[in-house]
C-alpha cells in the first residue's frame, strides 16, 4: 500500500493487524471495501446535498443577477457549479476511502484546522435565517404571522428527527419529497409563464465566458456577485457535511461505521469506532470495487448534482425574466435588493400571467425552500459538531454520537427560537448576508483542505490526479481571492 502502511498489535483481538498510518491521529485498520450498489441513483446522499444546496442562491440570487446584468453573467454560475461538482467528488473520495468525515481528515492534517471549521459552523449555521425567510413567504399566502410559523417549523424539525429510527433515512425521505414537489411545481409554473426566448438567452449566457459588466465591479454590486457565486450549488460547509451523509448511508468504507439513531431509539445505538478504516489498495479485487464506487459517485456528481442544480436555476431564471417582462416593477424591486419585496413582486407578476394560483404557488415554494433549508442545515450542523465533539473534545465519548447529535440539534433549535423572538430587528435577510461572507471563506478553505487530505492521507493508488489538485487550487483562489478583493478594493464583504 505504500509508505503509510504498518503492522501494529491490535489490543482488542490480541494479534497483529495491518493499518494505514495517515497524518497525526490514530492509524486506520485495514478492512474490506464492500461492493458498490446497483444504480438506483435517484435517492441517495447526493440527492440530500442537491436538495439542501438548491436554495436561495438558485431561486433568488442568480435570477436577480440575471435581471441586473443580463443572462451573460451566468457563465460565473457554470464555473461555480462545475467547481462544486469536483469538490463533491473529492469529498466523496476521502469519505468513501476512510469512512471518516472530512473534519476527521482535517484533524489528521492538524487539529487547529478542524477547530477552525468547528468555530465557523458555530458562527454561521445557528441562525434561523432560512426558516424565517420561508415563514415570511407563508405569511403572504395564509396571513399567519411569520414568527409563529417559523417557531412551529423549528420545533417540527426537532420533533421529526427525534422520533425517527434512523435520522438519515428520514432526512432523505423528507428532502426527496419536498424537493420533488418543489421541482414538479416550479416546472409547471415555468412551463406556463416562460418562453423559449428567455430560456435560449439563459443557455447562451452560460457560456459567455469572461463577460463582466463594469457595473458589476462597483462597491454596490461586486459583493453581490461574490455572494451569488458562493451560493451557486451547495454553499459554505454543506459539501463537508456530505461526507457525514455518505458515511451514514454506508458508502464505501462508511459501511464499517454505525448510523445516527433517533432520540427514542438510543438504546439500540452501536459503539462508534475511534477512527475510520482503509481498504487494501494492493488487492486488485478491492481496487475494482473502489472503481465501481467512484463510478457510482461520478454519476451522482455529474447527473444529479450538476444537472439538477443547473436545471433549477435555469427554471428560476426563466421565472424571474418572465416576471420582469410581465411587470416592470419587478425589475425595480429586484434591483433594489430587498428580497422580500422582490419575492412579492415576482409572485404578483405570476398572478397576473397565470392567475392568482401561480403567485400563491410561487410563495409556497419559497416557503418550502426556506423550511427544508433549515431542516437540512440543522441536521448537518448537528452531525458535524457531534462528530468533532465525539472524537476531539475531552470527555466527548462519555456520550454516544447520537446523543451529541441531539444535544446540538435541540440547542440550535432553542437558540433559533430565541433569536426569532428577541434577535436582530432588521429581519432574516441581514442574517443571510453575514452567512454569505463566511460561506465563501469556508469554501476557499475546504478547497485547500481537500488538496492536503487527499494527497497526504490516502494511499498513492487512490489519490486524485494532478489536474484535480490544480482545479481545487483554482477553487481556493477563486473563493478567497474574490472575497479578499471585495474587502480590499471596496471595503465591503458580501
Amino acid at each position, binding site marked *: 500500500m505504500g509508505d503509510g502502511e504498518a503492522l501494529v498489535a*491490535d489490543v*482488542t*483481538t490480541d*494479534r*497483529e*493487524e*495491518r493499518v494505514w498510518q495517515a497524518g497525526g491521529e490514530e492509524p486506520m*485498520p*485495514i478492512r474490506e471495501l*464492500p*461492493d*458498490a*450498489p446497483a*444504480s*438506483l*441513483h*435517484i*435517492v441517495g446522499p447526493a*440527492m440530500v446535498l442537491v436538495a439542501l444546496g438548491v436554495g436561495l442562491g438558485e431561486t433568488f440570487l442568480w435570477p436577480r443577477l440575471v435581471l441586473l446584468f443580463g443572462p451573460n453573467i451566468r457563465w460565473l454560475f457554470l464555473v461555480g457549479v462545475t467547481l462544486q461538482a469536483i469538490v463533491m467528488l473529492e469529498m466523496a473520495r476521502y469519505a468513501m476511502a476512510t469512512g471518516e468525515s472530512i473534519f476527521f481528515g482535517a484533524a489528521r492534517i492538524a487539529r487547529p484546522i478542524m477547530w477552525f471549521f468547528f468555530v465557523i459552523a458555530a458562527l454561521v449555521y445557528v441562525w434561523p435565517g432560512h426558516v424565517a425567510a420561508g415563514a415570511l413567504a407563508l405569511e403572504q*399566502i395564509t396571513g399567519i404571522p411569520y414568527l409563529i410559523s417559523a417557531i412551529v417549523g423549528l420545533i417540527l424539525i426537532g420533533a421529526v428527527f427525534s422520533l425517527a429510527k434512523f435520522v438519515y433515512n428520514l432526512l432523505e425521505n423528507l428532502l*426527496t*419529497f419536498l*424537493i*420533488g*414537489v418543489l*421541482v*414538479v*411545481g*416550479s*416546472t*409547471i409554473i*415555468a*412551463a406556463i409563464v*416562460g*418562453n*423559449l426566448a428567455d*430560456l435560449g438567452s439563459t443557455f447562451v449566457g452560460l457560456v459567455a465566458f469572461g463577460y463582466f459588466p463594469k457595473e458589476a465591479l462597483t462597491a454596490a454590486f461586486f459583493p453581490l456577485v461574490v455572494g451569488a457565486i458562493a451560493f451557486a450549488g451547495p454553499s459554505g460547509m454543506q459539501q463537508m457535511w456530505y461526507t457525514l451523509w455518505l458515511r451514514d*448511508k*454506508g458508502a464505501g468504507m*462508511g*459501511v*464499517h*461505521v*454505525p*448510523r445516527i439513531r433517533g432520540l427514542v431509539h438510543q438504546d439500540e445505538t*452501536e*459503539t*462508534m*469506532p*475511534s477512527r475510520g478504516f482503509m481498504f487494501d489498495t494492493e488487492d486488485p479485487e478491492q481496487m475494482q470495487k473502489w472503481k465501481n464506487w467512484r463510478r457510482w459517485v461520478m454519476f451522482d456528481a455529474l*447527473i444529479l448534482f450538476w444537472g439538477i442544480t443547473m*436545471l433549477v436555476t435555469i*427554471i428560476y431564471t426563466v421565472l424571474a425574466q418572465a416576471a420582469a417582462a410581465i411587470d416592470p416593477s419587478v425589475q425595480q424591486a429586484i434591483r433594489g435588493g430587498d428580497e422580500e419585496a422582490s419575492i412579492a413582486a415576482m409572485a404578483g407578476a405570476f398572478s397576473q400571467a397565470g*392567475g392568482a*394560483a*401561480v*403567485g*400563491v*404557488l410561487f410563495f*409556497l415554494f419559497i416557503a418550502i425552500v426556506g423550511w427544508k433549508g433549515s431542516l437540512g442545515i440543522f441536521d448537518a450542523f448537528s452531525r458535524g459538531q457531534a462528530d468533532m465533539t465525539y472524537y476531539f473534545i475531552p470527555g466527548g465519548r462519555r456520550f454516544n454520537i447520537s446523543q451529541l447529535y441531539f444535544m446540538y440539534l435541540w440547542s440550535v433549535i432553542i437558540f433559533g427560537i430565541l433569536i426569532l423572538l428577541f434577535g436582530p430587528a432588521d429581519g432574516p435577510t441581514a442574517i443571510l448576508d453575514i452567512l454569505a461572507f463566511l460561506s465563501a471563506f469556508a469554501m476557499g478553505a475546504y478547497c485547500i483542505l481537500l488538496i492536503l487530505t487527499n494527497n497526504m492521507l490516502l494511499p498513492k493508488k487512490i489519490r486524485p490526479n494532478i489536474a484535480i489538485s490544480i482545479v481545487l487550487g483554482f477553487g481556493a483562489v477563486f473563493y478567497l481571492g474574490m472575497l479578499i478583493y471585495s474587502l480590499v478594493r471596496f471595503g465591503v464583504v458580501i
Partner: protein
Amino acid sequence: MSAAPSTLRISTELMLPGILVGLGTGLIAGGLAALGGLPFAYVALTTLALGVPLAVMGAGYDAILASGRIRLGGVAPAMLYWIPAFPLARLFHEVVLDIGFGRAVVLPEALMSFLTFQAIMSVGYTIGFLWLHENVAGLWWLRVRDHNPVAARYVGQYTSQAAVMQGSKEQKARPNDGVGTSKPK
C-alpha cells in the same frame, strides 16, 4: 386458498404510483388555484386538464417499467419518456382551458417554439416525477408484492441495494471486533 389476482388488478396496481404522481401534480396546481380564490370552474379545469393527462402518461411510464424495458429509478430512460409526453400534456391543458372558458381554440401561436420550450421543461418534470414516484412506489410495492410478481421483482431490486448500503452496515457496525474483516499478515 384465495384466487390468483386478475391481470387487470395486477396492471392497475403497477400503474398506480404513476397515476398518483400525475394526479398529484394536477392537484397541486388546482388546490393552489382554490387557495388563490379563483372560481370553481377554473380550479376544476386546471386540476383535471393537467392532472388527467399527466396521470395517463404516468401510468404509461409504469407500464413500460413493468415490461422491463427500462431500469428502475433510471434517469435517462424516464427523461426520454417525458420529453414527448410532457409537452403533449401541456398542449392538452392549453386547449382544454380555451374550450372551458368558451374561447376559440387556438394552438399556441408558435407551436414549435411552444413544444420545444415544454420539451426542455420536461427535464425538470422528469426529475420531480422520479423523486415523488420513488417515494410513493417504494411503499406501495412493498404492500402488494405478495400477490404481484412484478412488484415483488421491484422490491427484490430495492432490497439487494439496501443490503449493500445498509443491511451489511448493520452487521459490520461492530468496530474493533476484527471478525473476518481484517487481513492480518
